[in-house]
């Protein structure tokens, strides 16, 4: 059967019209801690995530937030470290702890039929970690070793060099060496936990199949806690606008990070700022990717991302490039930023990025687990229920002049902080 068809013309496309944002209203509360829910009864699994203001920004010693978070599962309440890992594995569950600059989280993912067996362990991990000495020594031994391996990688060294320049003495600076583990003892872990893992300051997110059972079980097990919103001031944040090169002998590729200050989601310029960054380096078709990977083949990948922290926001462009292309890559990054500032973005390209962004928003609503993590982001940054609907509308209304305006206002090469780690820093191509 032969049909008439035209393969040269793109099929008509429809724009994303609406998003169904899960409710920002807590379904319930447990001893004063709000519980946010995204439910789908058909799902076999549940995910429970408890989020605390216990990120690395709160730590008084390097690596303390990370060590505390990792040690939560190494013995808690009546359970030894072995019992926790054995029970978790026996039920095929995941119990994970994670830590960012602002927040730390403890997550349980399990079959809904195993909630009874696992919630008591999960609660012990949150509220009664034992921080046993033997396990802490073992943790330090293991983690120091893997940190040493990571510190051989140009991208990791570059992240630290960049952090030093950009975050200075602020609470967000990442400055650590394997030896810093030796300066932490159990008392530090206990103190950090007492101050920062308080239920009253936390938020609970439950997604998946049997939300009501999970809430009921948590209500039985969780103890009330005193509230004490402990959050350090951002500190001395004045990024150094300089280029710093750190030599690593024998490196076949150089790691590059270029950063500059960004604006918060509430800023009225933010939708245009977001789109400008996407055009520059926020997706596979971005200008940096097209120029530096697809046209010149200097790299396997390059990207520009907006990082939203509680107290500040920044953009970072990062890549790893063949050693001899280091200089040329920096020139091209400058070229693309200047092009964004000086030339009006073609309407076609702008339309594409708007639609791509809308599609990406839709993807973040795929499944209850991702909707729950979207809720977490919205609450952390104080976004309203209608934020994403409005964001979608504002994006569709952006003009090339808006992009030019935000590019000139914020994407300023004079404000760049640049870190480079590699063998050489000159173009011998």
């Amino acid at each position, binding site marked *: *059967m*032969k*049909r008439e*068809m035209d*393969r*040269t013309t*793109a*099929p008509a*496309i*429809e*724009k994303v019209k609406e998003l169904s944002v899960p409710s920002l209203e807590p379904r319930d509360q447990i001893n004063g801690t709000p519980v946010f829910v995204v439910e*789908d009864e*058909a799902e*076999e*699994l549940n995910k429970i995530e408890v989020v605390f203001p216990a990120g690395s920004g709160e730590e008084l010693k390097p690596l303390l937030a990370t060590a505390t978070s990792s040690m939560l599962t190494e013995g808690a309440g009546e359970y030894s*470290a*072995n019992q926790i*890992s*054995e029970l*978790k*594995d*026996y039920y*095929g569950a995941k119990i994970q702890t994670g830590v960012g600059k602002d927040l730390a989280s403890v997550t349980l*993912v*399990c*079959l809904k039929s195993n909630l009874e067996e696992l919630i008591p362990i999960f609660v012990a991990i949150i509220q009664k970690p034992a921080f046993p000495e033997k396990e802490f020594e*073992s943790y330090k*031994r293991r983690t120091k*070793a*893997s940190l*040493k*391996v990571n*510190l*051989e*990688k140009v991208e990791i060294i570059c992240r630290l060099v960049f952090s030093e320049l950009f975050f200075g003495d602020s609470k967000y600076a990442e400055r650590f060496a394997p030896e810093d583990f030796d300066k932490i003892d159990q008392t530090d872990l206990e103190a950090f936990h007492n101050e920062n893992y308080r239920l009253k300051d936390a938020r609970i997110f439950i997604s998946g199949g049997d939300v009501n059972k999970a809430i009921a079980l948590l209500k039985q097990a969780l103890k009330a806690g005193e509230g004490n919103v402990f959050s350090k001031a951002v500190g001395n944040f004045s990024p150094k606008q300089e280029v710093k090169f750190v030599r690593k002998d*024998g*490196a*076949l*590729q150089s790691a590059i990070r270029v950063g500059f200050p960004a604006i918060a989601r509430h800023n009225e310029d933010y939708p245009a700022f977001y789109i400008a960054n996407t055009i520059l380096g926020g*997706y596979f*078709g971005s200008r940096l990717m097209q120029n530096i*990977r*697809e046209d*010149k*083949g200097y*790299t*396997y990948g390059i990207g520009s991302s907006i990082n939203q922290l509680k107290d500040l926001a920044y953009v970072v462009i990062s890549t*790893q*490039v*063949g050693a001899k292309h280091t200089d040329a890559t920096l020139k091209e990054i400058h070229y693309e930023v200047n092009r964004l500032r000086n030339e009006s973005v073609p309407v076609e390209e702008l*339309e594409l990025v708007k*639609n*791509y962004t*809308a*599609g*990406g928003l*839709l*993807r973040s609503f*795929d*499944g209850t687990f991702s909707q729950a993590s979207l809720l977490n982001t919205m609450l952390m940054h104080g976004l309203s229920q209608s934020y994403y609907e409005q964001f979608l509308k504002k994006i569709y209304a952006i003009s090339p002049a808006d992009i030019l305006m935000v590019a000139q206002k914020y994407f300023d090469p004079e404000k760049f902080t640049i870190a480079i780690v590699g063998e050489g820093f000159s173009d011998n191509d």
Partner: protein
Amino acid sequence: MIEYERFVLENGLTLIVHKDRNTPIVSVNTLYKVGARDENPDKTGFAHLFEHLMFSGSKNVADFDTPLQRAGGQNNAFTNNDFTNYYVTLPKENLDTALWLESDRMLELGFSPEGLEVQRKVVIEEFTQRYLNQPYGELWLTLRPMAYKVHPYQWATIGKSIAHIEEATMDDVKSFYNRYYSPSNAILTIAGNVDSELILDRVNHWYGDIPSGNSVNGSYPTEAIKAEDECEVLIRDVPQGAIYMAWLMSNRREMDYYKFDLLSDVLGNGKSSRLYRKLIVEKEIFTQVSAYITGSIDQGLLVVSGMLSEGVDHNEAREAVLDQLAQLAKDPPSERELTKVKNKVLAQKALSETGALSKAMNLSYYEMLGDASAINSFQDNYMKVSAEDVQAMAKKLIERGVNELRYEKRNG
């Protein structure tokens, strides 16, 4: 239970449709039955290089990514030793855009010389970034040729050496495409909140007139199981010593596959596993250790990898691992231990069913293995495994030669 419908077009294209009512997006997954095992030993890295070229434009569309992104879509692909997998997710209203693009590059690729030149450079940077400029990055480049003497698994998907990628010609590219990229060698799976009649209609529209092409039945040499051990030492500037031990196991379709997989879990999957408890926590021989299987379709490998504690030598580490294996060969695992690793299989299955894309990928994969319905029944094979079966696999491994790769610290 994942429900799906399966169709075969006149030109041989297999279509699988899964209705997922809970997602605003649609996933379009295309699996081509070609991987690094299909490469000429003198032109390796080709299936993967080719994957990059599939984005460099097709007969009627100059560029794959741009129209897709305009339709709100996102895409990527990966290649392994057995197959090449392309995937797209986009708002369900724009399904036609994905089918238009995917069908056009199945119909005929653009073959631009510029595209080849650039992707050659990009893949060389990928090679450098992943395999050369990382501590322990050469692992698979070294271990594969030790474990495989005749089977094409002896090279990694990135290829044996950068030279093969540097020397790839346009003729190589074209003949590779003509041989493997045809409807009869592909499985298309679509998952989303879309009715199968509509999908079948649209797929017939876009793919119906693509010539069938050859169905390729690759045959691969069987790797002889050897009894001798083999050991290679790499002396490098690494912060700690490392050891990788690999045994030839079974192929993917044998019942032994499931037994070996559970053996690897009992040995070294997670913090409650034997290797972790005995060799990290109790004896402090390693700072990291794990056991896993490679999961390939032909004879795979069961691998134990470990990072050595300061002051531990490689012989001690090797003996400690062999000792754990010997204990399993002597006594079967306890029922609780066996139940534990089986429960993990069940939970992981549930987890892999939480998104439209992961379901689409899995349906394509099982269809390639022989029958998409295995997505609902593969766990039964795990449940059939007894403690004695695990013990028997441990015995088998002990009798087989181990391929051992050691990283030693320079000056230490």
